[in-house]
């Protein structure tokens, strides 16, 4: 097994771990962490597979860099939303009233409006 394939397999492993967490965990921050884990896995696969020929390929490196930027942006947005949601509803999970019946949800306003 070449090191590059090893990277790829590690990436797949990370990805599956992340996916498992993403689906199973209820707490939104944990979900977000799981998503980042998945993201790292995907980047690892990208870099790993591209090195097959022995010579490192610059393209995936550039792509992964871009991907990391995108992932950071997504994470930041998610954190802002989750924090705000927590302030408004006092919940850190999406559980609660059925998703289609939002009008009936009674938000518990706990903190002052800070944004």
């Amino acid at each position: 097994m070449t090191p590059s394939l090893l990277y790829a397999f590690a990436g797949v492993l990370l990805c599956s771990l992340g996916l498992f967490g993403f689906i199973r965990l209820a707490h939104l921050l944990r979900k977000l962490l799981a998503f980042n884990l998945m993201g790292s896995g995907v980047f690892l696969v990208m870099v790993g597979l591209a090195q097959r020929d022995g010579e490192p390929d610059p393209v995936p490196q550039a792509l992964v860099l871009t991907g990391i930027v995108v992932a950071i942006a997504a994470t930041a947005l998610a954190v802002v939303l989750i924090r705000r949601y927590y302030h408004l509803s006092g919940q850190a999970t999406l559980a609660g009233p059925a998703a289609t019946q939002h009008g009936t949800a009674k938000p518990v306003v706990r903190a002052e409006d800070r944004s």
Partner: protein
Amino acid sequence: MTPWLMAGLLFTPLAWAVLTLLVNFNRGRLISWLGILVQVVVSLGLWAAVAGDGGFHYQLGGWPAPLGIELRVDGLAVTFVLLTALVAAACGWHASIYLDPAKAWHRYFWPLFWFLWAGLNGVWLGGDLFNLYVGLELISLSAVGLVALGGESAALRAAIRYLMAALLGSLAYLLGVALIYGQFGSLSIAGVSRLLGEAGTAPGQTLPLLLMLFGLTLKTALFPMHGWLPPAHGIARSPVSALLSALVVKASFYIAARIWLDLGGYLGSYGLAQLIGGLGAIAVIWGSWRALWQAKLKQVVAYSSVAQIGYLFLLFPLTWGVAEPVSLQAQQGITLQIISHALAKAAMFLAAGNLIMSVGSNRVDALAGVSRFLPFSLFSFGLAGVSLMGLPPSGGFAAKWLLLQSSLASGQWWWLPVLLAGGLLSAAYVFRVYRASFMERAGTDRFFHPSRSLEVIPMILALLSLGLGLVAGPVLSVMVLPFGEGGGQ
């Protein structure tokens, strides 16, 4: 000429996003009006250029692929660019009046709106898998932000749900892209397709296709992965819902369709095509059925989106392993369906927003008796409904006709009942709204007439979608324009 057009098309939205980030809602409105004007003119110009001289490839900043960004500007792409310009201009205009400047967070509407537009243009024109990913992410993130603009906790819940689904979808897609690059060393769809054509397929190559399609269908809200859509589209502010339903979901579908048409022939299979088509068919029926029973007006429209998106996935079975003319017919039908649904659904959401504003309630029964006030918006809602039902002369009808023809010609008769039943079910939910508005009941004399421009916008969109069927021929003839000079890569 074209470099300027291309620069205008891609640069303005990004520049305007930054500009509007710096100012408050009212200033942002003024700046955005100017930007919208520029965008519409540029889109029209590009459309006219391609309609006249055929499509071309364009390297952004002169950098060649794979590190540079290569754009493919063909008839289909400019058709969608123009569609985006129309719908986004309408929604932006509507939002500039509809949104309340007094709410401080509404000022973020403009930057998000412009980022969304930039992402959409990027996706329509993108030629390689990774840039499509970036465009898609830009769209998803700004769309999530727009949903959260409502501000209340239900809106945030919907936004987070949407974000989670979108992120999962993006990662699945990205993993597929990584695997494709690992195998072929190329990111351009056309390049991969050429390599496949030369080398033939090997076992295991279906996995990347599956991953990409999974990610994209999740983002397009294909049944049974549609759960995130109705809450998000239902709770967002009406102009936002309009943007989301009309354009955002189409972007991921567009990528899926391009991948399928170029790579599906090699990597796909009859079973996969039928499976995706079948899920689309279930979405048509299930979405319409759920729409029929929603108590809230915007939820009706949101579930209707689930159903209408379902039609799009008939592209997969109707283009796999069929004769070239039949496949072309199906592609034309789906393109018309995308355009007419975009126009009709935007009209419907904007009209629904006006109606909600007028009667002060978002429930369908609250519409009892409003028909006597001759609300313009109700009329727009109904006209848009005609297109969704697929009744003539709307674009929806032309699309349905083409799909019927290609189902018949390819011998896949089992889609016929889906197409017909889908139309009848959508008639059922549209007429439910209509019926409520005709009910004569005491105590319905309170009615607020929104400003004229708010009412005119959905009417224009609805009339466009209604008239699309009459001019379907010319519209489609631009779509199939081949590349002009310098075709291929």
